């Protein structure tokens, strides 16, 4: 029932009651691995009480990046407020989910749980006096046609000659279905539209506190992929699936609140921004290269961060331009916020938000003034001009990003030793795998010529 799904504060008894009344058959205990992949342990309604008592265990060694075989028993502790029933395919038996924190058998939070990394970063914000870190994501994705066997292609509806079906296109219908399902699950959809590139769409939902938003991004991706599939399409959050058209980003809007007031707003400043807002930007710019491997985590991410497609390339900020790395949207008062435009939706939302928060807090703590805002078009400047203005560039590849991150004490602090080591190792392997493969481009360029 719709009313039951709206984000509410549930306790154990509420959940058991709803599961019984709604005849829910299965519950998925969800968590996220360090690469941002949604994992789950499925239990039946009979096992639910045990799970809600935090007694549900699973083998951590089966999850990549988690642990070695010797340390494998992990506990799942469901967060009751994340309880929701999936609105699709009720005939097969209703399925609900609970997002969980991962704990060690000794009752301590598991170091390799990305949700814990975010909670740790939020605690630091609390210690510094901030009650809430509000985050609003703008997530883009592509919808491609699937072939006869259900495998994705890179053909979009717009190119496939579906115009004979009528004015409302496939992508629009699928996107509308996605919004309806998201609303059914408690999301407040702010905007939903077709993006610049053919087959590309964007759905924005209302900002919320960081932890809820990170959970919501994971849920969002699941819903988008599921509903796309049920519409005969494949949704992908790959940053740059097709060369020559815009890629998919996940712009991240952020603001800190203290005592019910937006700490970024100061009506007496010429831009109406507080010192903390400026320092937040300063911290972000200072640490950006160290966390690029988190905000832009895959080889393909860096194919998007090139000039000409509205994606940022240089470390600069502006309250006037629309395409810098960091943009200050015009809204003020409670809606004052900083927008980081480089992250892409392939990132792990818990790690990305934690990294952004930590970078901003570093700026505030150390009173890091940002460089002057860049209101000119950086892409129009020559190399010399750019260097003269002190404008550096984002890493040009995953390899560059990882090399900077390896040397970054800041990144190590944010992620914690466990995830830091595992993440770098995995990314080194990913790069090596990519580097050693022979690509289509190489064959095209060299096979005939040489």
């Amino acid at each position, binding site marked *: 029932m719709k009313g039951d799904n709206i984000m509410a504060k549930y306790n154990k008894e509420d959940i058991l009651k709803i599961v019984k009344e709604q005849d829910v058959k299965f519950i998925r205990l969800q968590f996220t691995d360090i690469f941002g992949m949604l994992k789950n342990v499925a239990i039946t309604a009979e096992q639910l009480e045990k799970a809600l008592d935090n007694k549900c265990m699973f083998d951590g060694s089966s999850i990549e990046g988690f642990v070695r075989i010797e340390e494998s028993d992990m506990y799942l502790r469901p967060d009751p407020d994340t309880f929701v029933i999936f609105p699709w*395919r009720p005939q097969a038996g209703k399925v609900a989910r609970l997002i969980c924190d991962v704990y060690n058998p000794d009752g301590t939070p598991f170091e390799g749980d990305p949700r814990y990394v975010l909670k740790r970063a939020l605690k630091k914000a609390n210690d510094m006096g901030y009650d809430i870190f509000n985050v609003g994501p703008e997530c883009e994705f592509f919808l491609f046609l699937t072939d006869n066997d259900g495998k994705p292609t890179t053909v979009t509806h717009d190119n496939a000659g579906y115009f004979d079906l009528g004015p*409302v296109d496939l992508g629009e219908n699928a996107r509308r279905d996605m919004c309806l399902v998201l609303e059914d699950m408690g999301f407040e959809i702010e905007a939903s539209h077709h993006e610049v590139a053919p087959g590309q769409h964007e759905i924005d939902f209302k900002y919320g506190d960081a932890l809820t938003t990170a959970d919501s991004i994971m849920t969002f991706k699941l819903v988008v992929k599921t509903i796309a599939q049920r519409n*005969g*399409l494949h949704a992908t959050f790959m940053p740059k699936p097709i060369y020559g058209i815009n890629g998919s980003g996940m712009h991240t809007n952020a603001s800190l609140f203290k005592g019910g007031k937006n700490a970024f707003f100061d009506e007496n400043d010429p831009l109406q921004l507080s010192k903390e807002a400026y320092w937040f930007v300063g911290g972000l710019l200072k640490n950006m290269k160290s966390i690029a491997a988190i905000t832009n985590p895959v080889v393909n991410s860096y194919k998007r961060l090139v000039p000409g497609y509205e994606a940022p390339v240089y470390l600069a900020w502006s309250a006037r331009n629309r395409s810098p790395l960091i943009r200050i949207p015009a809204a003020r008062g409670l809606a004052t916020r900083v927008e980081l435009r480089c992250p892409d939706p392939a990132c792990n939302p818990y790690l990305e938000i934690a990294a952004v928060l930590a970078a901003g807090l570093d700026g505030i703590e150390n009173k890091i003034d940002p460089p002057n805002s860049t209101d000119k078009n950086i892409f129009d400047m020559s190399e010399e001009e750019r260097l003269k203005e002190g404008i550096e560039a984002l890493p040009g590849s995953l390899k560059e990003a990882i090399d900077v991150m390896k040397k970054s004490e800041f990144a190590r602090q944010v992620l914690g030793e466990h995830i830091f080591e595992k993440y770098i190792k995995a990314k080194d392997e990913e790069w090596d795998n990519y580097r050693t493969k022979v690509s289509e481009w190489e064959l095209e360029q060299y096979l005939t010529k040489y």
Partner: protein
Amino acid sequence: MEPARILVAMSNENSTKKLKVVLNAMGYQVVEQANNANDALRKLVNLRPDLAVMDYNLSPQNIIEVAKIAIEDKLCDVILIASSEQRGSLEYLKSKYDIVVVEKPLHKEIFLNTVELVIKNRKKVLALEKEIEDLKDTIETRKEVEQAKGHLMKELNLTEEEAFRMIQKQSMNRGVKMKEIAKAINLTYNL
């Protein structure tokens, strides 16, 4: 015979053409054809025909998933065409999902009878489902209005008739259903 819109998706062109001719001759409207299971799914989502006639061999990996989605998401009814060997493994679809499985080679009369029955049944079920929805709405409305009347009678010292009239007037003046007015009243007094 009830008119109906049908999508045909067979694994070869000739079968599709033949089926189209046969169905059109009976007065059905073949709105589209597909030679690919996911193409069929996309067309079902966007055209919402009454019935999809699909060949199991179109995509053995995928066609069952497409058929299930059509039923679960209430896109249309489904007739699957399969060989007698394949039919055995598809029995469960009949009971759990109401998907009709027809054996190859197709016998014209039997096939058309099956189509007619499925369409007739579909119309009946849709009509019943609508009636149920309407009845549910009526019960809900009655429940809310009774409660709201109770609140008004108690708080504003009205008779039952006056309370009902008040809700009715608000509903007419605002162009909002009586159920919504009643809900708003209940919410206010329950705060």
